[in-house]
């Protein structure tokens, strides 16, 4: 998707600073954020490609930590591209989703149980009585 391997390497370094490995979860680059995850993301969000390329151009020959700190300080729009794209691609990774026990915004039919009646929850509100001001008489 129009990104060179050099650009992908720069992205991987930046992405790993945002999402390092930890708590049993892979780092961004290990989860393919700069490779297949990025391609999958750009397929549905092509609007992010040019801002990303501009950002990676600026990041060349810069220390990734220094570059990110500068974006956070002075260029919230550019940092916003990274902050959308890196977790966006990360959470597309099937292994990450499995570890999260997250199967997307899947259907969870409503349990017809009237949970508002449990433990006298609602009765407590009713017992406190009306809280509205009635329409004043003319």
């Amino acid at each position, binding site marked *: 998707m129009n990104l060179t391997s050099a650009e992908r390497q720069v992205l991987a370094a930046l992405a790993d600073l945002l999402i390092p490995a930890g708590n049993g979860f892979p780092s961004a680059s290990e989860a393919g954020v700069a490779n297949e995850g990025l391609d999958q993301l750009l397929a549905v969000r092509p609007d992010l490609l040019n801002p990303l390329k501009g950002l990676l151009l600026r990041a060349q020959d810069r220390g990734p930590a220094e570059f990110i700190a500068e974006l956070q300080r002075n260029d919230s729009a550019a940092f916003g591209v990274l902050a959308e794209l890196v977790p966006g691609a990360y*959470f597309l990774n099937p292994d990450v989703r499995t570890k999260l026990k997250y199967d997307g915004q899947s259907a969870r039919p409503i349990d*017809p149980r009237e949970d508002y009646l449990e433990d006298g929850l609602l009765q407590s509100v009713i017992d406190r009585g*009306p*809280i509205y001001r009635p329409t004043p008489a003319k």
Partner: protein
Amino acid sequence: MSEPDPDVLIIGAGPTGAVAAKRFVEAGMRVVVLEQGDWPDYSKARANHSDFELTAGRNWSGNPNRRQAPADYPIDDSQSDISAVLYNAVGGGTVIYAAHWQRNMPSDFRVRTLDGVADDWPLTYEELQPYYEKVEADFGISGLAGDTAFPPGKGPPLPPGPLAPMGRRVARAHNRLGWHWWPAPNAIATRPYGPLKPCTQRATCMWGCVEGAKGSVDLTHWPQNIKAGVRLITGARVRRLNVDAAGLVTGAEYFDRQGAVHFQRASVTILGASGIGTPRILLLSDTPKFPNGLANSSGLVGRRLMMHPFGTVVGLFDEDMQSTHGLWGQHIHSLQFYETDPARGFVRGAKWGLQPTGGPLSMTRGYPWGDNPIWGANFHQNFHERFARSAMWGIICEDLPETENRMVLDPALKDSDGIPAPKLVYRMSENSKRLLQFHLARARESLEAAGARQVVTAPLIRETGWHLLGTTVMGDDPSASVVNAWGQAHDVPNLYVFDGSIWPTSSGMNPTATIAALALRCAEHLVENRRLQKVPA
């Protein structure tokens, strides 16, 4: 032989137009509706795809400046604290609304009498109550009768959604605090109901409901209206209303999608184009007889714009709140601080709705989390503290009317047909700022009492102008209002406004319930009095 002119022309196929058209066609009237948008394209709804969170904002953004669809007109919001959110399509704002179905409370109709500010409405809660009950049946509302924040009466037709773990936790806390809560009313079907299927709690209500469970009028009204004989013309952008020598509206000029101009005649014209679209059309329709725009002898067309400043407070809990899913929508609502308490230093109040927080990508974004750090060495720990373990109060603040808060025609900006675009001039009032700060603080206390380990107050964001109200105010005095209590323009007897533009005050509620009930009340009055209605020769 040509078709006879319709009895009624409605501009706008949102909830106002849908409710009114239904009543008119039931009464045997001929109805034509002009809608500049098309039918919503639910093939772009991605709730059942892994990229949902990435694509939702692109296809279902409520900001026309961001969406830039062919049916949209640009809005200059550079001089407004809040950006307008609306949807130009069959269904209007109900396509993207969160479906919080809130009636106004009795005091909302008597703000001047009770609180000494703004204006009373020329009707009462009790007068509107039967219309609430009727439209709640038509929209497939879920909820529970007996809410202690409202007078007794019939409840909605469907049972409420679940409180869910978040709602039960906060409900218990409010009971300890002695604060109000109630199972929330939603325009979300909890059981099969007419054309609606039951909700499956994907928490994606604002970005294309893939289930067909949300009570949006493209599902609940328009197919039935069309079947009953209403003629709905999509891709029809009105550029002005025309007036005859007697000062009566003869109909509307509109562009079709190919740029051709048409004229639709009608005996009566009704505007239901939103608090921005409606005054825009009136201001565009100036004539030598109406030099400041149609129906504008009061000078109030476009003024008194109210948009409901919006706040969010999020609680993070140690236990699983299942908050990736649920009703979005709301699980419970609280009206504990809705009524005025002069000791607080402001008047009026706000409604709170408790919602889930969504999927994983939503845990990393600036809204609602603000500058609270997530990135870097502690990313996973920070993320897991939020993901599925958080719940948020959305706070709708009442916005009082001020004549300087207004919509005007932009002198330079135009839509794709060359029609002057609207410009918003809006500043949040001191009363609104105090009100918002008070409610954010109380909502924090609510979540802390519920056991939240951390509470985050979200940054205020601009794109929260979902509720566009007040710009053609109703009242009894023609010098101080645009329309009367039945939506009829004081200056033009066969011109009506039925939408949220006519609200004298904004309440602190999500407005669709009252917009729909008011539209039905106005339509009912027009039906009953149609033989007395002045119409063009």
